[in-house]
C-alpha cells in the first residue's frame, strides 16, 4: 500500500454580516489546523460568452470528530484553506461507520476574458 496523501489544511470560520453602509461582509477566521486525505483533484473550465470560468474541485477526507461533525451540520459556516486558497464546501459524505467524513470542496478562480 502506498503512503496516503495526507496534506495540511486549515479549517476557517465564515461569518457573514452587514457593515454600516449596508454592504454584505464575509469574515474568515482560522479555527484549527488538521490533515486530510486529498483525492480527486480536478480543474474544470467552462467557457461562457465572454469569460472563461475555472472551477477547481477536491475531495478532502477527515477523521470524524466532534468538530468535523459541526462542519457537516453547518457547512456554510466553514471554509478550508488548502494550497493557500480558500475552498468552500459543497457536499459532505459521512462514512457509514462514522469514522470519516469526505468533503467535496470547490474554489473559483477569477473569471478570465475569453
Amino acid at each position, binding site marked *: 500500500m502506498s503512503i496516503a496523501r*495526507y496534506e*495540511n489544511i486549515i479549517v476557517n470560520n465564515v461569518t457573514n454580516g452587514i457593515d454600516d453602509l449596508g454592504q454584505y461582509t464575509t469574515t474568515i477566521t482560522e479555527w*484549527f*489546523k*488538521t*490533515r*486530510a486525505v486529498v483525492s480527486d483533484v480536478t480543474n474544470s473550465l467552462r467557457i461562457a460568452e465572454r469569460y472563461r470560468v475555472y472551477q477547481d474541485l477536491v475531495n478532502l477526507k477527515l*477523521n470524524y*470528530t*466532534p*468538530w*468535523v461533525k459541526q462542519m457537516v451540520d453547518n457547512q456554510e459556516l466553514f471554509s478550508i484553506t488548502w494550497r493557500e486558497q480558500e475552498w468552500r464546501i459543497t457536499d459532505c459524505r459521512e462514512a457509514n461507520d462514522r*469514522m470519516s467524513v469526505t468533503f467535496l470542496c470547490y474554489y473559483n478562480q477569477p473569471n478570465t476574458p475569453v
Partner: protein
Amino acid sequence: MPSQMTSGSFYGMPRNPFSYEKVEQISRDITSSWLTLEEITQQLNLFQDESQDTYLSGLELATRMAIEDYLGMSIFPITYKAYYGATNNAMGMQTAYDLPEVSQGFRGQCGNVINCVAYYNAENPPTLTTVSSTEYYYDPSANRVIVNSFPNDISTTIANPIVITWQTRANPLSAYPVIKQAGLLLLTHLYNNRSNTTDGIRHDIPFGVAQLLRPYKPLVM
C-alpha cells in the same frame, strides 16, 4: 552464600518456580499519560483538532496498560504485594523471598523498591507486624528479598503469613522510541476499530506491535 540460607518453601512446591504463594497488584497509575497528545494527534493526523482530546487520553491510558501487561513489565511504577508461606526455618534463619515482578534497572538503581516486609504474628486473631528495615535487604541479582531472621511468633493459622510489599521503579523503556512507536501503532488500531467484530479479515502488518515489543519482553526462567 551462607550455608544456612534457604529459599523459602518452593522446594516442595514444583508447580510454582518462585517462593511466593500469591501475588496481587495493590496500586497502579491509571491517570498519568505516557504518550503526549501532541504525539497522538500527529499520529492520527488530527493535528490541532482538539475536540477528541478527552477520548484520546482514555485510549492512551488503555494503550499504556496493554503494553505493560504484554511486556510483563511496568512503564510507570506499580505496587505489588506477595504472600509467602512460613517454613520452620524462617524463624531465626536467613531466608530468601522471590519477587515475581520487576522493572528495569537504570543508572545504578535496581528495578524494585521494597516498601515493607511484614508477617502475621501468633496472636488470636493474628496481627500484621512490620519487620524492621535493618532486618532485610534487596538482592537485585536474583530479584529477591533476603530476610536475616523472623521472630519466632509467626502465625501458624494464617496460610501465608509473610507479606512483602514493593514497587517497581519508573522504567527507562518508556522513553525508547521503538516502544513509543509500538504504543502509537496500538493506539491507532484501537482508534480505528471501536467494535469487537469486523466484517472482513484483518491482517497484521509486518513489524507490528508484537514484533516491535518482542525483544523487550523479559524471559521468565
